[in-house]
């Protein structure tokens, strides 16, 4: 139990000096994107991995966070760092709303996946149609580089922010593994009826999980906006974010603390090699993602982390 906590500290400490070791912006960007996807994956993992509720529409929370940041900054001049907080709150609120509605009416499995997909689509159409989100044109955050403005002149600043968010994600996952809430969540995943019979408040547990998950996605949305300084309805609410968020923990290992991080780095490498091998051909890296998704489910349903755990167990058992 404490071992995982120690492992988190070790991993974070190992990741901390990257900006001083990686001298190229290219590799620092690589690490930032890996951590960023790992963070989104961790957010999805809280609900999908620990709770077994597969959402196909996490973009709804991500996009809400991203638009919260962009709109508050542009329209009301709110401090970008404060926007991060609001994005988390609103992302969580949308999560709570979607969760309360769908879990209240007992949607599970494919029905839940469908309704989340539809929610994301509703948000996409809204963002595409109303004026204050910039409609189809999107919103551009003006370039004013300074740390106080959450726009760092060099990539190292962004790296530390996303590392901080990663730490937050890992801490929450670790807490879930060791808390009553986490135990209840896993019980709901394994057998909802049995969990209810044992006195677990299934509805409450699932809503808390989706709220947490949505809040983290919202934070991820803010990070995206500050890093790329641009957001439009397809980036915010399109299926690409939802798919990345679920692919990362599936590749890494569902319902594990380190699975999303592992999966994100693995996928980032794959992505990099794909770009080297095939050039920047439109769509081909996504083809590869699809192939990986299918192959993982076919041959490695427990993910990379599951594989590592099985071989570790074998190693331990062998002497006995």
């Amino acid at each position, binding site marked *: 139990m404490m071992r995982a906590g120690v492992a988190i500290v070790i991993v974070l400490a190992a990741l901390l000096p990257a900006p001083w070791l990686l001298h190229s912006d290219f590799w620092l960007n690589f690490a930032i994107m890996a951590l960023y996807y790992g963070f989104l994956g961790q957010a999805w993992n809280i609900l999908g991995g620990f709770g*077994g509720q*597969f959402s*196909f529409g996490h973009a709804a929370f991500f996009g809400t966070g991203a638009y919260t940041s962009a709109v508050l900054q542009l329209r009301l001049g709110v401090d970008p760092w404060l926007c991060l907080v609001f994005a988390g709150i609103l992302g969580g609120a949308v999560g709570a709303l979607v969760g309360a*509605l*769908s879990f*209240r*009416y*007992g*949607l599970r*499995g*494919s*029905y839940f*996946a*469908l*309704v989340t*997909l*539809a*929610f994301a*689509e*509703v948000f996409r*159409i*809204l963002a*595409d*149609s109303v004026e204050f989100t910039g409609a*189809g044109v999107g919103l551009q955050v003006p370039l004013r580089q300074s740390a106080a403005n959450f726009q760092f002149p060099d990539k190292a600043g962004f790296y530390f922010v996303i590392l901080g968010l990663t730490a937050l994600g890992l801490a929450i996952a670790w807490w879930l593994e060791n808390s009553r809430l986490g135990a209840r969540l896993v019980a709901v995943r394994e057998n909802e009826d049995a969990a209810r019979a044992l006195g677990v408040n299934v509805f409450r547990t699932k809503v808390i999980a989706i709220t947490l998950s949505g809040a983290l996605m919202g934070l991820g949305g803010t990070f995206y906006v500050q890093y790329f300084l641009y957001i439009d309805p397809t980036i915010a609410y399109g*299926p690409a974010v939802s*798919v990345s968020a*679920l692919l990362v923990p*599936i590749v890494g290992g569902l319902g594990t603390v380190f699975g999303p991080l592992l999966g994100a780095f693995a996928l980032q490498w794959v992505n990099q090699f794909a770009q080297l091998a095939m050039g920047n*051909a*439109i*769509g*081909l890296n*996504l*083809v590869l*993602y*699809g*192939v990986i*998704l*299918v192959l993982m*489910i*076919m041959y490695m*349903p427990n993910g990379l982390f599951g594989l590592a755990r099985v071989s570790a167990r074998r190693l331990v058992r062998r002497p006995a």
Partner: protein
Amino acid sequence: MDQLSILLPAILNGVTTGAVYALVALGLTLIYGVLHIINFAHGSLLMVALYGVYFLYALFGIDPYLAFPIIVPLMFALGYGLQRYVIGRAGHGKDENIMLVTLGLSIIIENLALFFWTSNTRTINTSYGFSTVDFGVAFIAVPKVVAFVGAVIIAGLLWLVMQRTDLGKAIRALAKEPRGAQLVGISAPHVYAMSFGIGIACLGAAACLLLPSYYASPQIGHAFVLIAFTIVVLGGMGSFGGALLGGLIIGVTESLGGLFLGESLGKIGIFLIFIAVLLLRPTGLFGQRA
């Protein structure tokens, strides 16, 4: 009366569009009813069929309606193969896995299309493309009328196959009582793949009926997939009559939504219906169970 002269054509248009939606949804509801999986690759497979029809026309000059006997068997074979050799194998008997595999397939198919065929939309010009039929209250394009009639005929044929043939009986037996069906000698992998194949063959038919009044593009599946899901959920998962009626309702909703709320915001009506049905009555209009 002015109101009516705008409303009636919109409703009529919605009904014809809805019939084609229904055709797309029929395949989806068949697959769900038998295999109890949601085929997230449905939209991208429709897109493949649309391109098939397009290329038959563009390269060989085969009229979309005459492409029927080529596209439908090809789509059937594609569906059969996908279920038997990819989806069925990857499932490990878990619904979540199957869901994810079909999602993965849709990503693969869509982006391959984007790569090979670029994101250009492609249309065809047929001699009858712009002719209309006068219904007294409105003029409706000929392709839309053909699509409506075609969709109703195919839905009827599908119903006959399910009710009257041995295959239909085997499919229904497997849907109701998988273990019992296998005990009396029904080969589950084969019949599952047949059902999936028939569902995908419906997409081939839909593509032939659609293309004269529509277009093909790699992302076209998105537009249809959520609509088809909505119809299936609205009509009741696994119900043919429900899919047909649901298709018409959604077609009219979309048409009226576009009329009152504008092109972009008008689509929101469909998704709101979808969410409302999922939440309030997940069994749909004709569904037996949740």
